[in-house]
């Protein structure tokens, strides 16, 4: 398994760079992960990240944009503004979770 050093700590990642062990993640790490992909986290970002983390614990899989909007109450439009271009993947990365598997 590949490891990488982020913020002076070693974490396990897959070959794309996504964290594979959600327990190695904390909010400080999220800030660094976001910075690495050019995103400065605001309260709105945090709301999405926290929903994704909580939902992952409850569901065992990463929520899709559809689920974040209908269950998490954050509109799809907002998600595209917060995490431009590839919101589902970028959000999953910052939240230290796998990419979502669902189609919609």
């Amino acid at each position, binding site marked *: 398994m590949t490891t990488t050093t982020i913020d002076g700590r070693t974490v396990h990642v897959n070959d794309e760079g996504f964290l594979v062990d959600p327990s190695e993640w904390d909010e400080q790490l999220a800030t660094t992960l976001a910075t690495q992909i050019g995103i400065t986290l605001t309260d709105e970002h945090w709301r999405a990240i926290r929903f994704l983390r909580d939902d992952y614990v409850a569901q065992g899989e990463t929520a899709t944009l559809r689920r974040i909007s209908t269950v998490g109450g954050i509109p799809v439009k907002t998600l595209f503004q917060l995490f431009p271009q590839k919101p589902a993947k970028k959000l999953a*990365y910052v939240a230290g979770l796998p990419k979502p598997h669902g189609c919609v």
Partner: protein
Amino acid sequence: MTTLETAPLIPDFGAAQTTRKLAIICSKGNLDMAYPGLVLANAALGEGVETHLFFTFWGFDMINKKTMGDLKFTMLGNTATHLPQGLGGLPGMTAMATHQMRKTIADLGIPDVPEFLQQIVDSGGHLWACRMSADMQRLDEDDLYDEVEGIISASDFIEKTEGAQLLFI
């Protein structure tokens, strides 16, 4: 095996501006044939791909306010249901099959057609209506889903989607 990377491994989310474009022509008005275009458009937008949908012929039912929420699925002529074709012709069969398909789709958390179109627009997708279909069905912009950007000719659509990958459904 453990590999130690010195520089942090960061996923490649592609360039900030991608030139990739996708054009999807939706020509069918059945419930089951509405979804492939919607799902693929949604997926493309989620990958940062500029996406345009062109609704033509029976695909107009997907954006006609009167029909878009009421598309149907029929077993008739569809051998993939693996049921005797005669069954599909019985009274009430299309209604039953449609109800069942809607339920299956909703249970998966997938939106109905009008809501799906809204999600596509919210994700930055573009909806276009075919001029000839509008003329044939005597419909104008007021009859169409509000988020449709315009009724345009086939050549306008080809022009707008220059360089795009194209899907005909």
